[in-house]
């Protein structure tokens, strides 16, 4: 069993797939920034941002259902914002009573909560489109263009290269453990000894993984040295942006800027 399913990239020929990764990256971050800047309760702006995200999803030909399903993964964190419904002062909306406890929800609180949930949901959709339509090497090009230090970019690259190798090793470790401790997968079957024993076993596996990783990194380093590595990270200069991509970039940033200003002016 290999872990290539880890990579969220989905090959395609859509307009979004073919867009320069630098433009995609800047626009995705600008979109998320716009969503973050939008004041709570500015519903028209949220509707337009959502429509924009939907438009991008449709253009990317990834499938609306696919993006929505993956976007659900980010939702559990919404729980962290739930209490704000009851604690923000404002017009009372409804009351809950849990035994002797009384909670009063306010309209302002609900507005804040829905705004936070919407912001995060729309933002994560754009992030999904970015990572599903851009292979990792192109993301690294975007990072270089964003002036991330070269060394850090090359650490990212090596990490991505060996992530699959080490994730495979981690899965082999997990499989070996289930084989030896007779995991049946049946509900109610107890597996292994006490909690601290299980923790120690998992820890031993982690230690094993780190040890293999450190030794592997030694071998990789020696292999790199023997191929002429001298500590300097060299890469090809970035190609210039094509005129069409410049146009997309400028139009996108202008559009998002207008939406942000619109939100500020009328709802800020």
């Amino acid at each position: 069993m290999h872990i290539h399913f880890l990579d969220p990239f989905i090959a395609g020929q859509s307009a979004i797939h073919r867009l320069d990764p630098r433009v995609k990256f800047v626009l995705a971050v600008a979109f998320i920034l716009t969503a973050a800047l939008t004041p709570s309760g500015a519903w028209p702006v949220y509707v337009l941002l959502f429509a924009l995200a939907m438009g991008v999803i449709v253009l990317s030909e990834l499938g609306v259902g696919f993006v929505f399903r993956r976007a659900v993964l980010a939702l559990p964190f919404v729980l962290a914002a739930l209490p704000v419904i009851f604690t923000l002062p404002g017009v009372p909306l409804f009351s809950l009573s849990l035994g002797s406890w009384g909670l009063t929800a306010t309209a302002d609180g609900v507005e804040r909560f829905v705004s936070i949930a919407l912001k995060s949901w729309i933002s994560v959709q754009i992030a999904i489109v970015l990572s599903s339509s851009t292979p990792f090497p192109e993301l690294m090009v975007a990072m270089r263009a964003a002036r991330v230090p070269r060394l850090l970019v090359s650490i990212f690259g090596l990490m991505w290269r060996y992530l699959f190798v080490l994730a495979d090793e981690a899965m082999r470790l997990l499989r070996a453990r289930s084989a030896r401790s007779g995991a049946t997968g049946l509900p109610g079957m107890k597996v292994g000894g006490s909690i601290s024993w299980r923790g120690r076993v998992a820890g031993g596996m982690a230690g094993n993984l780190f040890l293999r990783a450190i030794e592997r990194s030694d071998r990789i380093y020696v292999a790199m040295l023997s191929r002429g590595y001298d500590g300097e990270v060299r890469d090809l200069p970035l190609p210039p942006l094509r005129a069409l991509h410049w146009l997309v970039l400028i139009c996108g940033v202008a559009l998002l800027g207008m939406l942000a200003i619109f939100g500020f002016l009328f709802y800020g």
Partner: protein
Amino acid sequence: MLYAPLPMHIPDGFLSVLVSLVLWAATILVVGYSLRRVGQDLGERQAPLMGVLAAAIFAGQMLNFTVAGGTSGHLMGAAIATILLGPWAAILVLTTVVGVQALVFQDGGLLVLGANIFNMGIVGVAVSYFVYRTFQRLANGKPWGIFVGGFIAAWASIFIAALAVALQLAFSGTSPANIALPAMGGIHALIGLGEGLITVGALAFLYATRRDLVTAGEGQVKASSAVWVAGLLIALALAIASPLASAHPDGLEWVAEQRGFLDAAREPLYNVIPDYVLPGIANESLATILAGILGALIVFFIALGVAYTRRKRGTAS
């Protein structure tokens, strides 16, 4: 399974722009300095070692053990990375892990990536380092310092990082301090026990097989009192600020004042167009409906265009 199960990766939308940008600035400074320091210490070995270890931490987060009632213990890895590699390299490793989680797997947002790196990388590492070094000194070279220190360092890295997350949420007005702090702190005080158990297990394995890594690892050679002090300060600040903030949520009043200040700064902008919503639109819900119609039209026409080009491509090939 592929996602770190700790509710600690903040998604986009939960932090205010101000908090995100301030933490980005802090993160860039510290990571930039770490790059320099690690470059001096490790030289050209740096890139392969950091890259592969970041991959190992990421993969190590898949290793779990069942606790009770369908929950399981996992590894975040700040403590073990700090113990094996020293603080500066650990910061780089965790920056890479958290960065890839956000960029590729949407585990944490992009705008708040600075905050996530700050919490898990910088706070987690500094606190681990402070606790671990302190126990090492207390134990004076005896092995119990490694294991007790490792357990408490792992627990504290999770707990203090969770307090940092809760405080940031409170500052952003996303979650009230008097609820977020006890909730995040309480949950992670338990999750931290799992982290501690795995970390001790890993240390025990490494102590038995490669004692040199644990006793003479980079973390020991490159002792840095600046990081020790930073860890102490972060731990103290968060440990003191948290109960204060949760006992007196009004203590965050100055944030509200800041908000008021920002609103005031925005006032003249608003006055440019007084009592005027959109040309010809006086009603807010009408504006929302119009925006909805406009949005639906945009999406409809894009879908139409994509369907058209798809058909053309289909017939062409």
